[in-house]
């Protein structure tokens, strides 16, 4: 898994590329923590290049959501591929997190 992080005026974007599984989970958690520590608590996880995600990957996202909310920010998902969407549905995590169509739309409402 490759991980790239970019920061913008109102939010930061974390983009995991490839397979987000148990071995990649600690890295994404750290990246999110670092962003929050630096004051970027509004985070979009861009899943456009994420081919596959397992439950450990989802666990890392929930961990990130917790950290972001505690820092008065939020964590949102965007642009999930069909295979990622199916995992969100299988675990019913789609009942908690919305998959925004694009990174830009994730924080467009506020």
């Amino acid at each position, binding site marked *: 898994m490759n991980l790239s992080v970019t920061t913008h005026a109102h939010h930061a974007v974390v983009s995991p590329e490839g397979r987000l599984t*148990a*071995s990649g*989970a*600690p890295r994404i958690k750290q990246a999110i923590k670092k962003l929050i520590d630096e004051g970027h608590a509004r985070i979009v996880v861009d899943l456009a290049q994420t081919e596959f995600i*397992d*439950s*450990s990957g*989802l*666990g890392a996202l*929930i*961990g990130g*959501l*917790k950290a972001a*909310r*505690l820092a008065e920010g*939020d964590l949102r998902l965007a642009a999930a591929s069909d295979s990622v969407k199916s995992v969100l549905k*299988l*675990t*019913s*995590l*789609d*009942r*908690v*997190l*919305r998959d925004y169509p694009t990174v830009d739309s994730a924080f467009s409402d*506020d």
Partner: protein
Amino acid sequence: MILIRVFAVLAVLTGINYVAWRWLDSLNWDAWWIAVPLVIAETYSLIDTFLFATTMWRAKEREGPESPPAGTVDVFITTYNEPVAMVMATARAAKNIAYPHETFVLDDGNRPEMAAAARAEGLGYITRSEDWTDKPRHAKAGNLNNALFETDGEFLLILDADQIPDPLILHRTLGYFADDEQVALVQTPQWFINVDEADPLGSQAPLFYGPIQQGKDGWNSAFFCGSNAVLRREALMQLGIVGYVRNLQDSTERTLRAAEKLLAREARRNQSVPELHSELKELRLKVAQARTAISDGEPIADVTYGLHTAINEASRRLVKHDLDVMAEDLIAIHALPVQRDAELGAVVIDEVGLDALATRELSPLAAVKSVGALVDALRVDRPDEAQPIQPLATISVTEDMATAMQLHSMGWKSVYHHEILARGLAPEDLQTMLKQRLRWAQGTMQVFLRDNPLAKRGLSAGQRLMYFGTMWSYLAGFAALVYLSAPVFYLSFGVMPVTAWSGDFFARFLPYFLINQLLFLIVARGIRTWRGQQYALALFPVWIRACTSAFANVVFKKPLGFVVTRKDGRVGGALPLREVWPQLTAMALLVIALITGIVRVLMGTADGTGTLVNTVWVAYSLASLSIVIQALRYKGPAAHAEEAEGAP
């Protein structure tokens, strides 16, 4: 297999034949107070027979996996207070497992000497993270859940601190996961090396780690037993995610419902303050909309985020309003009630003015505060728990059974691999053993009450029966009470629970009883099961206590008092007579009843056949209960061996 099925059917049919006759045709209503409990106990046993027969119906003997072992593995050794030397013996053996893996000591005792020993051997060492401070610890389940987030192996071998693994344990089990990617669990037997042939504490469970697990395996419900098992991380994590979502749905729904009520009440209370009133009414509307949105399928995190923002803004406005009012009031205070008396040079307070201030609905702070509490309650991170995601179930002190049932309900499969691949230590004294059995039984009954398999979605009929069967067997304590007292009443006072000890009785009871025993013999395939049978009856006070305490725990939230099983020998001290007084009392009563009964026959005041039946009955009970005396005198295997050597 055919033989087992024939006898299984016969056992149930003869059982129905007997118990139906007992209900319809042989109840002695004159002594209903013992006759009815007895026939209920017999019905209980018949259902037990049915569940046992079902378990054995399609017992599965596996040859071993077809696929070669594959995947990355973490070996977890769980410890709390076991001696460091014992843990390290297990850890070294774990390090020597032939298949590539990483070994971790999960030390819930957070002991520096344990950490040093593990690191000296180059092993991983994990203790609870800071997240757990002041949060429920969930014992062993919590220990494992904590470690799951510190590691990344695809498969997890779980070992108790005393379970020395065979170097081939992973080679023999990992292939099952490759054979079928729906397999989440491979359980191997627990076998104890500190137990001799006599096994007075009944530690070996050859019937359970054998025919019963194989039987459950046939219905795809082999149980997880906490140690000597390999688990698939993905399955556990999935359980954790699904559990998180479910928990969040429940808590959000509950919070929003409470919020709506609270806001309505506060709005009514503050009708005299228009700003506050309209603000609260507005918020109440928003909460109602949020509830509708969630039930319409809008994602919870989004809805609560929006609501959060609205509540925060509202309370900011309210606080500001509050400050404005206070500022005005301060000016008023300054201007009106407090005056300096020119003559006395002292401050005079205008009581009337002050009263006016106090009675004015000055401060909406209370309302703001309760709104603030709502914000806190509407969180998505399970603030009451250390981890939002808890893969291993925490609803019971036996996390293993609860977890396996969750896995099964989500469509995962389990495997029982019948080969001893780890060898451990059993409790060496009666007290420790009793505590361990109590904990198992309590945990099982907690699951029964909190997450009943008969009502649980996602389980197959067979799986429901397999889980229910284990729970049902722990109700045996109540039946035992009846079975022990009925012959005492007959032999001592001639109270008949049946209308007659007639030919009819023998014709119906004996086939049922004999076929049952035969089924047991066939199933056991030469395994010695007498010890288990003895304890099934002899531990009746433990089973009863487990049921009552689990009920009090689940229904009235009374703590169970979690007990960690000691693995390092025995607790010192005098004979634990206090622990087994019910059994000793029962034995005394049975002996007295036996003597009374014989005297009554000799005096010609009692019926010979009835006395004979009841004498045999009492003899069986005494033979079972007598194990308690053996267990009381047991001093552990070391002492046992010395005695044998010292004997001439």
